C-alpha cells in the first residue's frame, strides 16, 4: 500500500521532515516496487540525507548518492521487497562512503553504522536528531566558542560577518573558530561515545 506521510506522521520523525520537502509517498513493509522509478523516488531522499550526515558537503553527498543509485538500480530490477531494496541501498551506500574516504583521505573518517541502517530500514528516515547532539556539545563550551561555531556552522556566516557580530577582528575570529572546533571535538568524544 502507498502510505501518504501526513503532518501527523511527520511529527514522529526524530530528525523532522523539512517543511519544504515535497509531500512524500512512501512504500511500507513487504510491498514490491512497481518499477525502478518508484524505487528511486521513494528512497533518494533518505539515501541523500544519510550520506549528507556523514560527509557534510552537498556536492559530495550528491556525488555519493549518484554512485549508490547507479550501482544499485540495475541489479535491483529483480522483484525484491521494499525492505530488501532498502537493505541493499544501505549496503551499497556503506561501500560507496568507505570508497569515498579511502579515495580522498586514505582512511574512513565516518562510517555508516548498523544502528543507523536499522533505523532507516524500519522508519525510512535517518534517525538521530543532529541539532540536539550539537546543542549538547555547545552548552559545554565557553560562550565565545559557542558563538563562533553557531555563526560559522549553523548560521552560515562568513568570518567577516562573524567577527562583526562578536566584536573581534577577522584574524581573531579565525583563531577562535579553530580553537572552538578543537574544544567541541573533545566534548563530542567525551559525551558522544
Amino acid at each position: 500500500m502507498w502510505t501518504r506521510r501526513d503532518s501527523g506522521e511527520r511529527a514522529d520523525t526524530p530528525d523532522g521532515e523539512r517543511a519544504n520537502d515535497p509531500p512524500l509517498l512512501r512504500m511500507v513493509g513487504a510491498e514490491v516496487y512497481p518499477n525502478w522509478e518508484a524505487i528511486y523516488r521513494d528512497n533518494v531522499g533518505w539515501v541523500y540525507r544519510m550520506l549528507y550526515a556523514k560527509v557534510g558537503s552537498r556536492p559530495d553527498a550528491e556525488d555519493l548518492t549518484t554512485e549508490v543509485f547507479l550501482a544499485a538500480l540495475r541489479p535491483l530490477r529483480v522483484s525484491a521487497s521494499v525492505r530488501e531494496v532498502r537493505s541493499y541501498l544501505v549496503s551499497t551506500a556503506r561501500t560507496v562512503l568507505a570508497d569515498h574516504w579511502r579515495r580522498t583521505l586514505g582512511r574512513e573518517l565516518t562510517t555508516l553504522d548498523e544502528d543507523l541502517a536499522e533505523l532507516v530500514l524500519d522508519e525510512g528516515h535517518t534517525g538521530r536528531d543532529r541539532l540536539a547532539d550539537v546543542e549538547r556539545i555547545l552548552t559545554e563550551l565557553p560562550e565565545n566558542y559557542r558563538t563562533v561555531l553557531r555563526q560559522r556552522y549553523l548560521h552560515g556566516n562568513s568570518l567577516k560577518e562573524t567577527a562583526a557580530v562578536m566584536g573581534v577582528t577577522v584574524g581573531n575570529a579565525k583563531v577562535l573558530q579553530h580553537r572552538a572546533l578543537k574544544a567541541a571535538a573533545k566534548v563530542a568524544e567525551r559525551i558522544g561515545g
Partner: protein
Amino acid sequence: MFGARRFVENLLRQRRLGRLRVDPSTDAELRTAILLRSARVGADSVHEEFVSSLHQRLAAELDETPAPVPLARRKVIVRLGVTAAASAAVGAGLDQVLAPRSTKAPATTTREPVIAAPPPEQELTPDNGVWTTVAAAVDLPEGSAIQFDLGTITGFVSRTDAEVWAVSGICTHLGCRLNLDAPAKMLNCPCHGASFSVTGAVLRHRLKVALSPLPRIQAREIDGAIQVLAPPTSSG
C-alpha cells in the same frame, strides 16, 4: 594541520572536500565539523534539481537511451563508461547483501569520482568578501545562467548539475566583457570571438596563446537567494 583547515573551509563553503592529506590526529575535529555543518536547519534537504537530473541519468543508463539534454551528452557518455564497471562490480555482491541484516558489503572498486570535476581554474576570493545576493533561487532553474554586475566584480551565476556556479564575466585574454548566449549556455567575447562555458571552461578560441578558464567565484544558495562572495562596494 593545513589539510584539516582546508577540509573545514571546503565543508563550510559546501564544496567537494576533495583529496587532502590530513593528519589523523585531527579526525575527531573533522567529524565534529561534519556534525556541526550538517545540523544546520535545512542543510540536508535534497535539492529537486539534483533529484531530477539523477533521475534523467538513471533513465539514460537503465533504458540505454541517450540523455535528452544535448549539452550534458558528452559528460553522460564519459560517465557511462565508468559507472557500468561500477554497477557490475557492486552487482556481483547482490546475493550476499540481499540477505536480511547481512553486514557483508558489496565488492569495492577503486576509481575516480563519478561526476567529472571541471578543469582546474583560479578562484576569485576577495580578502574582505561578503555574501551578496545576485538573484533569486527560483530565477535560476537547472541549466540556466544569469549575469550580475556588482560594480566591484561582474560575472555569471548558473546552475549546472544541480550546483550553483559563479564565474568572472571578463575574458581571460584581454579583459573584454563577455556576453551571455543563454540558449547555447555560452559566454562569448565580443573582441576576439573566444567562448567559455557558463562554468568557466574554455570552449573555443582562435588565439595563438593558451587561454585560461574563467576564475570561479564562490557562490551559494541560501534562503531562496543566490549569493556570491564579492568585495564590498566602495560606497563609504
